[in-house]
């Protein structure tokens, strides 16, 4: 794997905590890699194995669930 490899990451974030944190990061002008794609959920408990598989199927290198 080359050192410039930048993984595409899908982040499944709870609207009430993790997404709010990401929002705050934005307000504070904190940067995170553009290869992180956030999907807002009403609750991280909504995440199902099918969501994770779909992320990989569509080319994600990693998925993370935050809530």
């Amino acid at each position, binding site marked *: 794997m080359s050192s410039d490899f930048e993984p595409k990451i899908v982040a499944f974030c709870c609207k009430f905590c993790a997404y709010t944190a990401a929002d705050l990061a934005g307000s504070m002008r904190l940067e995170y890699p553009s290869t992180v794609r956030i999907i807002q959920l009403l609750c991280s408990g909504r995440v199902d194995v*099918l969501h994770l*598989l*779909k992320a*990989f*199927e569509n080319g994600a290198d990693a998925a993370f669930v935050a809530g």
Partner: protein
Amino acid sequence: MIIADRKPIDDIKNMLSPYKKILLVGCGTCVSVCMTGGEKEVGILASELRIISELEKKGWEISEDTIQRQCDREYIEPLSEKFEAADIIMSLACGVGIQYMAEVFPRHMVLPAINTTFYGTTVSEGEWQERCAGCGDCVLHLTMGICPVARCSKGLYNGPCGGTDKGKCEISSDLDCAWYMIYNRMKDLGKLDMIGTFIPPRSWKASLNGGPRKRVREDLKK
């Protein structure tokens, strides 16, 4: 219900290797309840196969469908257009469903994605246990509703044997002794006198020993 396990992904991959257009068909009854071959499991397998196809350049085109029952013709027949469009059908139903789909569409090959294992029940979330062997000659009225054919490791009609050990079976300490359970239930229900009732050797003709079984009700036949 019928309980089943999904086959290892490598076995499934090998079976599908020669084909391009693959139709996965789930069943909405037993295998949905035991979470092996319902709509969701079809989605998971389809997703896994798409990922494999992408990584290994297999060029698979995966389509999915789940019908109410694969053991009834009226649910299978509406799939005819999808069958025609596919090179191969892979079923996530029990052995009955797989065979019946192949019977309804004799020009198509139907592959199994799961191994059918037993008739059982959900004892807790994520755990299923065998309860019936489909032996064709039920003795549950003599054994307090606990089947000695399916649940005694030796299938004893008169027990317990010398291998019973503090309520467990000698073959595994994880396995309850069926005859210990039968004895306790007789005791709890005040029917302990039944333990001495000899159950004579039975004819196994009603089981598979008489060949494949069938049931006919003349009054219902057209």
